Structure formats: structure tokens, C-alpha cells
């Protein structure tokens, strides 16, 4: 406690380390080594974010869980514009950038669509899409880019069908989504991409109002808009969040997960050679922990002075959660190893607190289907280029690979 005030000296950020830091080219699956240093040394460390803001980097597992569960931290982008990567005009706030009770009110209009039961009912459909894209990739011949042929189209099609977004428009929404996910995108370009995506979804909402189908957008209109719970703009914004989050994340877990399995053949064999869904489910949890692709998105602002360990975080200061670092903390034994014998449940790859990933059950089903099917159908699957030539997504909010050239 005696050091608490020493940690909040005024600082213009020029001396501060950059967050998230640079990953080691030799260990592309590991968080930036500098974060392990912060985690061991001090827990909370002042850093400069990519957008220039100063924040406290939270890198320990216990601190991340405690802080993301603390209602004194705000995610409200209206109250704290520094939380917004894109300054949006004419669009309502997205629920991940709201606090309770309004956040919870909006979130609960969507949670019924993502229950364990609902996504389990989707499993046969996910499985048939997995097989379809697998056979199409094989028919086109080795080598292939696994991202374009397999990892991206599966979750993209699943989320399109769930929402009621025509998959024929996938090039349109995938490119806008990528623009918003790229860290260095200039503000003007961000606003354009966000405006185009929002306008597209608002048009779709109005079309679905005239001709409702069996999909999430139609249900939100017939069940929530008519009751006055949501506006058309709210439905378009919720759809944008789900569309955006629903394919980028899972796509990168499928591609990076495949690469991690190719680099760890003994672990890969465990998934390939089992018919026990529990073994597969456990392996997917460990891959989620080990890879933790949400590398740079979880920012909050303290709404009052908060003491964390030896540090005083003052009202109005920003915090950023290093989820990849937290999932390599000592609470997991030999945390830097990919180990399917481990019980990895309790990881924070989906975040923690009231904003924890809405679509996590769907992501689990997609990963549990896509990864084993690939290993079983193509037992000779291998990387088609040296590992050093793989382009990792250092420049994106969600980590992964831009392409994954594979052969079989």
C-alpha cells in the first residue's frame, strides 16, 4: 500500500511501453514476452495503447478475473469515448460498449439464441458444413489456403444463416469486418466501413420486417421491436456485433488451432484418434486457453478510485486486460505448454464478467466439429511453407494467421 501513490505519477506516455508488445518470432503462439515480465514483476503496469491512450495493463489471471467482474469498471463507450476505436455517427451504442442495467437488457434479448441447448441443436448442421467445405477444399487440390477454404467460410456461413444475412454478400461484410479489426485503420476509413455495414444491416432489418424468415433478425423484429423493447436501429446494431464477432473469432481459432496442432503432433493425435466427445471438448478448452486470440480488445475505465494489489487506479483511468497473458499465469501448471491432459476450464479466453462472450457455446461447437474432422479426413495434413513464412495477425485485434498454406 505504501507504494500506491508512486504508481500514478503524471506521465505523458512517451516513456511507457507499448501494449500489447511484440511476440517472439520463435514462439508465435505465446503472448508478447514483455507481458510475462509485467505479470511476474508487478501485476499492473502502465502502458501506451495503439491509439495513443495510456492504460493500466492487467496481466495476472486473478487480477483479470477480479477486475472484469468489478462493476466499478465501465465499458460504456458513450460515457467514456476513449473506449471507442471507431467514432460512430447515427448508430446506437453496441451492447459490448454499455454497462448494466442497459447492457443486460439488450444482451438478454439475444442470449436465448445462444444457449447450450440451441447451439447443440445446430451441431448436425455445423457438421454438414464442415464436411462440405472439407470436400470442396480436397476437390480443389493440394496445396490450399486453409483460412479461405475452411476456417473462414464455416463460421461465416453459420453466423449468416443464424442471423438471416444472405451469405452471397459475404465478401461485402468480410472486407468491412476486416477493416474494423485492423489496428492501424485510419478513423475516416473505420467510419466508412462501420457506416456501410450498419446501413446494409438496417436495410436488411427493414426487408425482414416485410418478409420475416426463420432467423434471429426476424425474431428480434417480431418479438422485440413490436413490443417496443428494441428499435430497428438496435436490431441492426445487435446484428452487426454478432456478424462481426461471430466469424472473425472462430475463423482465427480454427486456423491458428490447426497450426498449433500441426506443430504439436502428439497432441493432434489425441484429438484425431478419439471418438470421445469429452476428450475433444477438453482439447478445445485447452486450445482456447493456449491461443487466446483476443489479444487487444478488452478496455475499461475506472468509475472510482480502485486499489488493485499495490496499485491505486484512479477514477477515469483506463485498464486493458491481457487475456493471453492471464491464461499463461501460474494458476495453470506449465502454462506455456499445450497439454490436453490439463483441465483448462476456467480460462479467460472468452473474457470474464457480465460481458463474457455471448457466442461462446456456438464457438465451442464449431471448434469441436471443425478441428477433429480436418485431422481425421486429412491425416497427412502439413504446413506447405516453413513456419517462418506464415503471416501472423500482429496487426489485428484478433490474433491468428492471414493465410495458412497447407498440403496433404
Amino acid at each position, binding site marked *: 500500500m505504501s507504494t500506491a501513490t508512486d504508481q500514478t505519477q503524471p506521465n505523458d506516455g512517451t516513456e511507457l511501453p507499448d501494449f500489447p508488445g511484440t511476440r517472439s518470432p520463435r514462439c508465435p503462439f505465446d503472448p508478447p514476452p514483455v507481458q510475462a515480465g509485467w505479470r511476474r514483476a508487478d501485476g499492473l503496469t502502465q502502458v501506451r495503447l495503439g491509439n495513443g491512450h495510456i492504460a493500466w495493463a492487467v496481466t495476472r489471471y486473478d487480477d483479470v478475473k477480479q477486475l472484469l467482474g468489478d462493476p466499478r469498471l465501465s465499458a460504456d463507450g458513450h460515457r467514456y469515448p476513449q473506449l471507442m476505436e471507431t467514432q460512430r455517427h447515427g448508430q446506437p451504442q453496441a451492447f459490448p460498449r454499455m454497462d448494466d442495467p442497459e447492457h443486460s437488457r439488450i444482451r438478454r434479448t439475444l*442470449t436465448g439464441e445462444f*444457449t*447450450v*441447448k440451441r447451439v447443440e441443436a445446430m451441431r448436425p448442421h455445423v457438421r454438414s458444413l464442415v464436411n462440405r467445405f472439407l470436400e470442396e477444399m480436397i476437390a480443389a487440390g493440394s496445396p490450399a489456403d486453409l483460412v479461405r477454404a475452411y476456417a473462414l467460410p464455416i463460421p461465416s456461413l453459420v453466423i449468416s444463416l443464424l442471423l438471416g444475412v444472405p451469405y452471397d454478400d459475404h465478401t461485402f461484410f468480410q472486407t468491412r469486418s476486416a477493416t474494423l479489426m485492423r489496428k492501424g485503420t485510419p478513423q475516416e476509413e473505420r467510419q466508412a466501413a462501420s457506416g456501410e455495414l450498419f446501413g446494409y444491416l438496417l436495410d436488411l432489418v427493414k426487408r425482414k420486417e416485410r418478409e420475416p424468415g426463420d432467423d434471429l433478425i426476424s425474431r428480434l423484429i417480431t418479438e422485440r421491436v413490436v413490443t417496443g423493447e428494441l428499435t430497428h436501429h438496435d436490431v441492426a446494431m445487435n446484428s452487426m456485433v454478432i456478424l462481426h464477432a461471430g466469424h472473425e473469432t472462430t475463423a482465427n481459432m480454427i486456423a491458428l488451432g490447426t497450426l498449433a496442432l500441426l506443430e504439436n503432433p502428439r497432441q493432434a493425435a489425441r484429438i484425431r484418434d478419439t471418438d470421445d466427445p469429452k476428450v475433444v471438448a477438453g482439447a478445445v478448452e485447452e486450445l482456447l486457453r493456449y491461443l487466446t486470440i483476443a489479444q487487444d480488445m478488452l478496455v475499461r475505465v475506472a468509475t472510482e478510485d480502485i486499489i488493485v494489489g499495490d496499485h491505486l487506479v484512479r477514477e477515469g483511468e483506463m485498464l486493458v486486460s491481457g487475456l493471453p497473458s492471464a491464461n499463461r499465469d501460474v494458476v495453470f501448471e506449465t502454462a506455456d505448454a499445450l497439454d490436453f491432459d490439463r483441465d483448462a*476450464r476456467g480460462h479467460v479466453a472468452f473474457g*470474464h464478467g*457480465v460481458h463474457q462472450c*455471448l457466442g461462446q457455446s456456438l464457438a465451442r461447437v464449431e471448434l469441436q466439429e471443425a478441428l477433429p474432422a480436418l485431422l481425421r479426413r486429412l491425416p497427412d495434413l502439413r504446413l506447405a511453407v516453413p513456419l517462418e513464412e506464415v503471416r501472423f495477425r500482429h496487426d489485428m485485434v484478433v490474433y491468428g494467421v492471414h493465410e495458412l498454406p497447407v498440403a496433404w
Partner: protein
Amino acid sequence: MRVELDEPKCVAAGQCVVVAPEVFDQRDEDGVAVVLEEHPAAELLDSVREAVAVCPAAAIRLAEL
């Protein structure tokens, strides 16, 4: 031991259903957790404790009777 759910706190992440499906389910309309077994058998208590630990909203408690 009694399972207590603070329903307004639940964020419908579904983690409790994954780790302790014998004890928890989710409401169809909004995914909010439902306790199926308020007094779970001894062999289920470990999974209930895990549900308490992984609940993102700290909405579950296992109370001593």
C-alpha cells in the same frame, strides 16, 4: 448443501450447463440459468463447485445447510 442462483446477475453464458448439466439448465427464452437440483447428490458437488468458479457473473453459490 444447497445451490443458490442469483437470477438477475446471470448473464446466460451457459458455462454452468457445460460443467454441471445434471444440476443446471437454461431458460429457452433468454438463456438465464435454471437450477434443476437444488440439493445435488454428493457425487455432483465437485462439478457444482466448478460451476461456481467458472460463472462469469458470480451468480451461483453453494450454501452450507
